[in-house]
């Protein structure tokens, strides 16, 4: 009985999707190898990290040789707007959609419609609760964990922490908070004495740092990526007496960590590579090729300090790139592009040479 209902349901689903696809199949290019159409929906434009993520998708698509075009819908929009974008991509006839969702569940309906139409949906960076999707991201819980461990170590196992989080309610922030508190709870001499949200906004972060950094009040600072202006603020507010800071792989933070070591600064770099987009593209192509891919693909971060990883950090700094550039240039096993190809940021359809 149970079995038969399942069969009926499956049959119905197949029938529905065939009906749905019937019209599209005539016009849309058949999803043959070397001819995939990839759609990207990104909920936040004009942000360096997201731009790099998109460039990584484009560059990797070009190099894969299997992608005909990458259609990017990248704009600052709300959940309804992003849902509309996902639907628009579906009507555009893409084979796979890579979504960096601005909301963990608000796009589920639109994603489900795409999945029902046989489109592979890969969520990147921010997880969603939509079923039948593949998730590719940096492991944010581990991010919080390794960052906390390194910070407490640099603080000598005691003291007060200025805890500058990201945006309240964002998936990455919640995950990092989980990992961070897990570790802090194990050290009774370490206290989070001030907790603020930067909303991942440099102006807010800078203002808060300037307001809160008072000599003697804190022995360590956690940032959720709004990092190097906190270090700059220390120069002024703490009169160049630096305390340890956990930051991300922002170009400028890496530079400061390298150069200010001589002044006693301990910068803890926990990379959060933006080129995770390239990994998402590889997963998308694998899925379209019919390969088996796990539902969740997490990249494990490591905490880097000048003391332990001098070479790594020295090579990460890219002088030609902007301060907020996410300075991780390759993900072994996922990406194949060179830095130059990444910076070029061309999709396969962008030029006659296929962008290569």
């Amino acid at each position, binding site marked *: 009985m149970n079995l038969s209902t399942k069969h009926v349901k499956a049959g119905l689903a197949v029938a529905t999707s065939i009906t749905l696809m019937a019209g599209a199949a005539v016009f849309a290019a058949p999803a043959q190898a070397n001819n995939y159409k990839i759609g990207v929906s990104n909920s936040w434009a004009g942000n360096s990290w997201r731009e790099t993520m998109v460039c990584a998708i484009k560059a990797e698509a070009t190099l894969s040789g299997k992608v005909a075009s990458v259609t990017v819908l990248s704009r600052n929009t709300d959940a309804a707007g992003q849902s509309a974008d996902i639907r628009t991509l579906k009507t555009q006839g893409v084979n796979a959609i890579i979504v960096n969702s601005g909301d963990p569940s608000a796009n*589920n309906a639109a994603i489900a419609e795409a999945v029902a139409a046989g489109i592979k949906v890969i969520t990147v960076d921010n997880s969603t609760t939509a079923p039948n999707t593949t998730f590719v991201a940096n492991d944010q819980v581990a991010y919080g964990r390794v960052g906390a461990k390194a910070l407490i170590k640099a603080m000598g196992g005691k003291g007060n922490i200025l805890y500058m989080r990201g945006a309240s*309610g964002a998936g990455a922030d919640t995950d990092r908070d989980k990992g961070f508190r897990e570790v802090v709870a194990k050290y009774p001499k370490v206290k989070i004495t001030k907790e603020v949200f930067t909303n991942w906004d440099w102006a807010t972060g800078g203002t808060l740092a300037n307001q809160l950094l008072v000599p003697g009040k804190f022995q360590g600072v956690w940032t959720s990526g709004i990092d190097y202006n906190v270090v700059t603020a220390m120069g002024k507010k703490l009169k160049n007496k630096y305390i340890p800071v956990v930051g991300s792989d922002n170009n400028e933070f890496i530079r400061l960590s390298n150069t200010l070591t001589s002044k006693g600064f301990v910068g803890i770099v926990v990379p959060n590579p933006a080129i995770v987009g390239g990994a998402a593209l590889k997963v998308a192509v694998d899925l379209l090729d019919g390969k088996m891919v796990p539902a969740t693909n997490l990249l494990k971060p490591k905490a880097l300090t000048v003391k332990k990883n001098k070479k790594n950090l020295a090579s990460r700094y890219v002088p030609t790139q902007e301060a907020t550039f996410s300075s991780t240039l390759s993900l072994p096993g996922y990406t194949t592009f060179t830095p130059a190809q990444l910076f070029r940021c061309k999709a396969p359809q962008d030029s006659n040479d296929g962008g290569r």
Partner: protein
Amino acid sequence: MNVIQLKRQSWNLAIILLALVLGIWRISQLPQFGAYEARTFVLGILPIALLSMGQAIIIIGGGINLAIGAEAVLINCLSARYMQDTTFTESVVLAIVFILVGMLIGALIGWIIAVSGIADIVVTLATSFLLVGVAMYVMPQPGGGVNQQFADLVSGKVPNFIPPLIWLILPIILIWIPLYRSKLGISMYAIGSSKEAAFLSGVNVKLTKIKLYAIGGLFAGLSGLVLTGITLSSSPFANISNTATLNSVAGAVLGGVALSGGVGGLVGPALAALILFFIPTILLAYGIDPAYSQIITGALTIFVVLFGGLLRKRTAGKK
């Protein structure tokens, strides 16, 4: 038909024409056009179209509501929080309650404006902060949910595009047309056109203002509920409410509502939302960065208002 009526009609005509041209253009770009695509169009504009209509009512009445986006966000958060894990009947009852809450909030804002005598823009600016704060209090993080049947009632089961279309048209039939014909409707145009003359004609200016803000709040409530129905979720962010507010003003103005008050209707703003939806998607099909659509949208709003202003100047000059 006199000059002004003709002009008002020609404006609507121009907007219908523009929406049609863009619509056909967009459809011609698609591999196929069917119910699903139609549904995508309607779902894409429904929340902002409702919000633009609410804004239009307030602007016609001589005000402006910079808190209308925040009202919608608050109702979005309230409904996604309390309608999660409810039965269909409960959801419907709650929906009615939240629409009333939206009206109440609108009425409260109207009351503050009427009693304090502070400019609309200042009061609504301040209340927009307040309401977003309350929304964040209700839903500290994005999330929540809603009864699936209720969601289907709002957005229709794929690929049924009729329910959202009904939600777009129903408010015009059930709220706008009776309003336009009622004494309140005439009073709305009256206080927008000339507060003094309206007062001398026996209009209770303050009460009318409160009622109009309440109706605006009703539309904001509808918009928030529809958002919940479409996204099955809520997001309590200030930037969302600000963007929605600014878009609602752009939509109303593009739809032929004069910012000086007393002129316009609700069909224009609904169509304007459609136009604002088509522009980026058409560009997308040409592989153009959607950021360009921001430029075009902004420039279009400016030019439409400029054109309308010149038209008004010319008719006024003929007096």
